[in-house]
């Protein structure tokens, strides 16, 4: 029987090189070097935005959150001691802010099922062909994406955070635990529940 082994893709990097370069960047930013700060933002902005988008489900909210996150990063950067990677540390700030924002947002707006069209418009903005007869594959992709994001949006925030960090951002259990401020066992249990919920929700896909 053929076995499809899953190989986790990793980049070949020298940890010491990465750590020292990262640490130098942090030091420069903490000292007020605007170029270094700009570099830090541009290096991580896409990652931050994507995570914010996947956690909040709204591009504008994700943009606002991204700015909020980087402002917070520069406020507390002097406290970064290198216990984790800079990326993981920033992830933690993103998750915390997204959690706060979402709690506020949920209180103001009722949790409702997002229509498929809106989900598709938010997450699957594929240039529409003027020809009404769109390729089936593209249409199916949009529909699937809409269902996936709808299912993701219905997950509790804690489960959504772990599944996004694991499956989309590719963080290890340890990194996820650091980002969320929980232990690895909690990561595993939340991941298991998230996957089960998504499996059920996307059964028809």
């Amino acid at each position, binding site marked *: *029987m053929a*076995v*499809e*082994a*899953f*190989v*986790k893709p990793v980049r070949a990097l020298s940890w010491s090189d990465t750590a020292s370069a990262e640490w130098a960047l942090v030091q420069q930013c903490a000292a*007020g070097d*605007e170029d270094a*700060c*700009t570099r830090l*933002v*541009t290096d991580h*902005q*896409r990652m931050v*935005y*994507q995570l914010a*988008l*996947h956690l909040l489900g709204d*591009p504008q909210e*994700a*943009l606002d959150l*991204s*700015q909020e996150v*980087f*402002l917070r990063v*520069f*406020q507390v950067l002097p406290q970064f001691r290198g216990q984790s990677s800079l990326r993981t540390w920033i992830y933690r700030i993103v998750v915390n802010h997204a959690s706060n924002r979402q709690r506020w947002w949920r209180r103001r707006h009722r949790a409702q099922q997002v229509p498929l069209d809106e989900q598709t418009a938010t*997450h*699957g*903005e*594929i240039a529409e062909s003027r020809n009404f007869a769109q390729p089936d594959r593209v249409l199916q*992709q*949009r529909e*699937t*994406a809409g269902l*996936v*994001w709808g299912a*993701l949006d219905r997950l509790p925030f804690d489960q959504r955070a772990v*599944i*996004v960090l*694991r*499956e*989309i951002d590719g963080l*290890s*259990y340890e990194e996820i635990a650091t980002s969320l401020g929980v232990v690895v066992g909690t990561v*595993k249990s939340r*991941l*298991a529940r998230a*996957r089960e919920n*998504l*499996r059920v929700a*996307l059964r028809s*896909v």
Partner: protein
Amino acid sequence: MKSQECRTQRLAEYVDGELSGTERLGVSRHLESCADCLEDAKALRRVGDLLRNAVELDPTPAGLDGLASGVISRTVAERAQSWKAVCERAVEDWHWFLVGFGSVTAAFVSITFVSAVLHFGPAPQREDSVSALLSNRDWQVKNSEGGGSLYVWMTPGGRNDWRIMLTGKERAEAAAEAIAQVPDALAGLTTEGDLAGALGDALNRTGQPIDVQAMDAGTRSLSEALLHQLTEINKSNRQKELQGDSAAGPSSVYRMQVVTNTEVSGKGYQ
């Protein structure tokens, strides 16, 4: 693998690449022979694939281009509002005020210090008439109305005894004016002893100090004039002494003192 939950967890760790080499090998071998576990592993991987495929459709927002500059601008602005920055700016804006305030404070402290030294420190000697001595800050005359007496101790002829020669609150007449009024009385009084003796006679007739307010104008003028003459002689003797004139003798007036109703302060005059 034991329970379903353990099995699923183990598979999840396998799919996520969280197992060690030996553990991975074990699971991999198990999957070769277990269809159920293999199916579960595929299901786990499928959820991730669906998510990753959906993410690929996410467009890059245009707002992301200006994110860095916006964040940096706001951070710089917030740092400018920090307490440290506010204090630094306050010092920079108000440094002239601080310099002026410091100067005023320093001047005030200096003036206070000098005043204290002048007030509590040793007083300079004044070799002039009693009226000038009265104006010297060395004297402390606390009562201004109805009190205050001026005693002049003298030792005519070099003796150490003393006599109260004069009492009075203040010298109302200038010495020159006084001398002008009693020129006859001063005639013939040339030596210090003559002057001291005349002054004693004029002011201490009953052996008790005579209040200068009760004196008649003539006696008062005489007293003032004699006192002035004595002062001049004393001054002259001291000058000669300083110049090394061996013929100049010590002054007979060895102490002059002002006494008030409440306080006595003295000054050596020799």
